């Protein structure tokens, strides 16, 4: 395959290919027009594409696959926890399941979710560019991601890994008898995909904005993606070197975390959390960006406090690197470091609070409508508020000394990562789906699934806060009988939540073929991505748009409603 230097030649071939085919099923408005989905056909045209929109679709398919794998593990775990003795699994199997659940959900679903799918699709569209700065690097990122995924899946098939997603030493380096190396290698490789994606976004946002699109006219989604990219670029390499050291120690039976040569297992935790705490902001920041788009679009109103939301994203990205020690308050870390990390952890709560208040205030005097994406957005704000506030408990030294490592922590981070990040991701998918596919999904079903997810989520994870304060440790395959009632409640909620996630899968797939045609701007929303046809043509815009107004300039003119 001969690539042009930046994939330019390939693009011409794709277009030519279409004109030769020319006999697609004609449906008004979509199939009669050339767009990125029908510009060329065949598996090769997808696997060798450099079009950011197609790469976004590749990611969408891949991470949906990983989401349901990780979800299946969660279902088995919740089933097992119905009974204190463990309803159906051996402890060893259970341990492998939660490790797999963590590794896959964190590194192969949450971290790539919004950046790699919506970010890839939207960053060039939102800044009025033809593509990302490095389209071939972008395709490479997807391949790197898939190779990482294959290593991880290999680890799962070849006997699993039972260290938890945290790979704590010396369990991972010396005592675990499972596929630690291939799992660590899978995460290491996927990390490079994350770095390259972030790099691509940073360069693109800096260098490729349309004329007139100044930094303070950028949609807030891009501020969030930019902040996320900073974390991906500067945090991920530290995880990479740390996992390398773990793998080397496992291979050579001696290494820098090995207590036998004076190594410090707690140092591993420092290096690990230096990335892995900011990593939770890789998951939540893009969701926050999505929510900023949704609340404005569905209240037909400018965002309240644009610059505060924009700067709070950057502030979160920076401060998130200063707080990792709160994972180690009782790990044998010094008390003095604990105090420093505690105060810094409280600081990171402030920009998040500012965002929540500004979103709420955006509704004020708006013209609020309740299509499915808005329901997801409001659900996000509620769940994120509850998740964020329980973070204060964990930043508080004296309380953390009790709830650390318990289900309280499990509840907290699921509120942020599932209630927050996944709600935001689903909201974003629903919002931009007409742009992505050119078609609408059934709004009634979508609202129903949003409601089911919200209810199922709370039923699943609220009891876990209570379990945590009662003292039930996490990662337990069997547990003391006094914890059973709440565990059964949690498992019951999980079954509702599972249904909630399956419904969108069904109607989204359905809508790709049977959904009504959406038109370029079904929500009457502002933003460059709505000024091009749905689905967009391969080159995104007929001609480079010129930007003359602020972001979310609602109320300046009559907006078109489909």
């Amino acid at each position: 395959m001969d690539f042009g230097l930046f994939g330019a030649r390939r693009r011409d071939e794709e277009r030519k290919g279409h004109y030769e085919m020319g006999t697609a099923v004609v449906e008004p408005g979509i199939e009669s027009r050339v767009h990125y989905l029908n510009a060329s056909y065949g598996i090769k045209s997808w696997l060798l594409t450099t079009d950011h929109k197609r790469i976004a679709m590749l990611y969408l398919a891949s991470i949906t696959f990983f989401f349901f794998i990780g979800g299946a593990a969660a279902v088995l775990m919740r089933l097992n926890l119905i009974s204190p003795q463990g309803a159906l699994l051996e402890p060893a199997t259970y341990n492998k399941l939660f490790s797999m659940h963590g590794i896959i959900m964190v590194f192969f679903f949450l971290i790539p979710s919004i950046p790699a799918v919506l970010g890839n699709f939207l960053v060039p569209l939102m800044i009025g560019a033809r593509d990302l700065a490095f389209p071939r690097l972008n395709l490479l990122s997807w391949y790197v991601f898939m190779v990482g995924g294959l290593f991880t899946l290999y680890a799962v098939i070849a006997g699993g890994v039972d260290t938890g997603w945290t790979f704590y030493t010396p369990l991972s380096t010396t005592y675990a008898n499972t596929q630690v190396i291939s799992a660590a290698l899978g995460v290491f490789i996927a990390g490079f995909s994350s770095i390259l994606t972030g790099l691509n976004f940073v360069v693109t946002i800096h260098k490729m904005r349309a004329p007139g699109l100044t930094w303070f006219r950028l949609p807030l989604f891009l501020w969030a993606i930019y902040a996320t990219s900073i974390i991906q670029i500067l945090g991920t390499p530290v995880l990479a070197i740390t996992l390398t050291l773990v793998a080397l120690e496992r291979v050579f039976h001696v290494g820098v975390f090995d207590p036998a040569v004076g190594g410090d297992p707690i140092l591993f935790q420092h290096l690990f959390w230096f990335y892995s705490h900011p990593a939770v902001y890789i998951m939540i920041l893009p969701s926050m960006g999505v929510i900023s788009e949704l609340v404005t679009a569905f209240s037909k109103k400018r965002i309240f406090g644009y610059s505060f939301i924009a700067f709070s994203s950057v502030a979160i990205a920076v401060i998130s690197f200063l707080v990792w020690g709160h994972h180690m308050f009782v790990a044998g870390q010094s008390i003095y470091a604990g105090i420093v990390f505690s105060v810094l952890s409280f600081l990171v709560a402030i920009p998040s609070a500012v965002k929540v208040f500004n979103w709420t205030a955006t509704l004020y005097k708006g013209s609020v409508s309740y299509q499915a994406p808005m329901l997801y957005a409001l659900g996000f704000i509620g769940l994120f508020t509850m998740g964020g506030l329980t973070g204060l408990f964990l930043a508080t030294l004296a309380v953390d000394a009790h709830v650390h490592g318990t289900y309280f922590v499990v509840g907290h981070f699921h509120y942020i990562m599932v209630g927050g990040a996944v709600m935001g991701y689903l909201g974003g998918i629903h919002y931009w789906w007409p742009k992505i596919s050119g078609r609408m999904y059934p709004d009634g079903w979508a609202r129903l699934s949003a409601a089911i997810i919200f209810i199922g989520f709370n039923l699943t994870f609220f009891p876990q806060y209570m379990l945590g304060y009662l003292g039930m440790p996490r990662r337990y395959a069997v547990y003391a009988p006094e914890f059973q009632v709440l565990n059964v409640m949690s498992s019951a909620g999980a079954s509702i939540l599972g249904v909630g996630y399956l419904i969108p899968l069904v109607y989204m797939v359905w809508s790709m073929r049977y959904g009504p045609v959406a038109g370029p701007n079904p929500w009457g929303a502002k933003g460059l991505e709505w000024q091009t046809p749905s689905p967009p043509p391969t080159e995104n815009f007929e001609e480079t748009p010129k930007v003359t107004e602020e972001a979310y300039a609602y109320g300046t003119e009559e907006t078109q409603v489909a």
Partner: protein
Amino acid sequence: MVGHIVHKKLYFLVFAGLIGLTALTTGVAFIDLGKWNTLAALAIAVCKASLVVLFFMHLRWSSGLMRMALLAAFVWFAILVALTLSDEFTRQWTPVPSSWEAQVQQQAR
């Protein structure tokens, strides 16, 4: 034409400087300066790295973006080191009840 073109002479000058500093740092290592040995070695290394970055890597003629990337790298590296050390070097400072200190002092006497 894009990018800044540097005169050949400058490259050779920088190279000579780098070799000279290598000789210097090697030489200094054989003189006992106490803790200053480490400091001198690191200071010379920083000088050498700066020469490479400014001239060979053209940072001197590059836009603010490149400088920003470099600056970010060092700020974040500093965060990593500083906060990790804040634990590692204070772990022995366990709080000691006041009477222990009295006891230790007594033993010292």
